């Protein structure tokens, strides 16, 4: 009996702890989303328990600011970056696993070295390069430098290496050329790793901050991360309600996607981590 009681209390305490931690983690969301429904006047007065709830801030964010344009820019740039990385990383990974050529190990070593070099340390010459190429303030400046990634190549190489040798032998016997083997066998077989890399590269592009800040200056090419900063500095502290609404507009879709894809994402992440 006593033992039963004990484990029941333990159980309740665990739930209390679980709920308390969830509340702390979610608090910034709750506060942000709650204030996004309040008039800025009330927020400025510190009246957070105001009952004047409305969608006015959302209407203002959509109609008075270029937030939709920023979102569209980010979406197009992230999608194109993702597609390009999936293609070029898988191609180079294929070369490292299935092709025999001189200097293969040396080149792979170069790719590994690339992973150790932070992009943040290369911004000065890169800025000069894109300026020279006339790419400033244009979608291309946010896509071209990220068409491929050493990390993506490395990750896919690890995965491609596990493609069963029998598949390769069978394909050789069938007389498949490298294009056919790559496209019809290797890519479908490594679907999970491809999707993991896709999610990773999309998020990576979506979260870029420093590079777009340096290279884009107009609303035509400004991405959402810098767009929010722009709104925030233009409206400095006088329209908190609308700023919170803008933040909510960005974060809510991602969270929904995350909720739906959580199970999937987790297995993908762990695969990436272990590999």
């Amino acid at each position, binding site marked *: 009996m006593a033992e039963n009681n004990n484990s029941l209390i333990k159980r309740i305490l665990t739930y209390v*702890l679980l709920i308390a931690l969830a509340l702390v983690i979610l608090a910034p969301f709750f506060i*942000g989303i709650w204030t996004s429904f309040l008039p800025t006047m009330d927020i400025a007065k510190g009246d957070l328990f105001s009952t004047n709830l409305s969608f006015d801030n959302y209407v203002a964010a959509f109609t008075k600011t270029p937030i939709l344009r920023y979102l569209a820019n980010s979406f197009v740039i992230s999608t194109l970056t993702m597609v390009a990385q999936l293609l070029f990383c898988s191609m180079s990974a294929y070369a490292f696993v299935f092709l025999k050529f001189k200097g293969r190990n040396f080149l792979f070593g170069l790719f590994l070295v690339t992973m150790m*070099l932070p992009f943040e340390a290369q911004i*000065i010459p890169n800025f000069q390069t894109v300026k020279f190429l006339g790419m400033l303030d244009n979608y291309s400046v946010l896509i*071209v430098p990220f068409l491929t990634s050493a990390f993506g190549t490395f990750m896919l190489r690890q995965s491609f290496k596990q493609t069963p040798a029998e598949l390769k032998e069978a394909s050789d016997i069938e007389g498949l050329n490298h294009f056919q083997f790559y496209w019809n066998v290797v890519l479908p077989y490594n679907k999970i790793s491809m999707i993991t890399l896709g999610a990773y590269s999309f998020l990576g592009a979506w*979260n870029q901050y420093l590079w777009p800040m340096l290279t884009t200056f107009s609303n035509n090419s400004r991405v959402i991360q810098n767009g929010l900063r722009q709104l925030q500095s233009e409206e400095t502290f006088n329209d908190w309600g609308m700023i919170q609404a803008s933040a909510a507009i960005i974060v809510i879709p991602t969270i929904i996607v995350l909720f739906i894809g959580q199970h999937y994402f987790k297995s993908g992440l762990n695969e990436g981590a272990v590999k």
Partner: protein
Amino acid sequence: MLKSPTTDQTISKKQTVSKSKSTFKLNANDKYFSLLFLGPSLFILGLFVFYPMIKTFYISMFLTNTLGKTSVFAGFSNYAKLLQSPDFLNSLVVTLAYVVGVTFFTLAISLLLANLASKKLPGISIFRTLYSVTMGVSVSVAAIFWLFIFNPSTGFFAIIANALKMTPINWLTDPKNAMWAVIITTVWMNLGFTFLILLGAIESVPQTLYEAASVEGASPRFQFFKITLPMISPTLFFVSTITIIGAFKSFGLIDLITKGGPTNATNMLVYRIYKDAFYSGNYAQASTEAIILTVIIAAFTLLQFKFLEKKVNY
């Protein structure tokens, strides 16, 4: 885009032509195929990674004018100058403090969350989802949420302090507190990802180990420290290096929350590089700082590779 694995069968129906000829073709053409498959990646990496890295190192060996043109060869004197500059040393110290703070709290809290969420209780999957939620938050959104919370007059913390008749803390104007503000925001952003990775690791610890320990009468605390921690230590090491590298490269949150201030209290390496190059036009100094950053990141990445080598055996 991706075809189903059944294509194998359709292929075998189509392909019955002379096998020997095509296998021969396959090997002879490897050289051209490799050029085709590797070419695009090599070109991009060459132009946007290797060239700028070499160029940055080159510039760091010279004195430059405000247009970024190199003038006088300076050898390693830029490095010597930097390492004696109190301003730069302050940046290094501040960066280190930030990295240590972020890494410690990210790992400690994620570990607590992952350990709790690994318990087999009804409804636990809800908590797993909730704990991973900050993964969907980007820098600008995190900065806005927390800037509001830290705001000295209308912020959430200020309102609570006022309600409790306490003086609100100057989160962003006091140098020490500003550092905490940036650390708190970064840790919050990191939690989702780190939690998920650690949860995966804890879940893959064989249950039999815990069962055996329970039979022996080992306490949950003992089990955590003597079974869970050692078993997940490779993953722990992996996420540590990722967190450390990420913290060293931090820029967005600094720019959005403190702009390196107050009085350089959060003027970290990357922010400094950006300011020196694009505000002051001191390209030589910025490049020198960039090379120092590269050395630090490269060292930690090497450590991570060591882990990967050990972990992966084919």
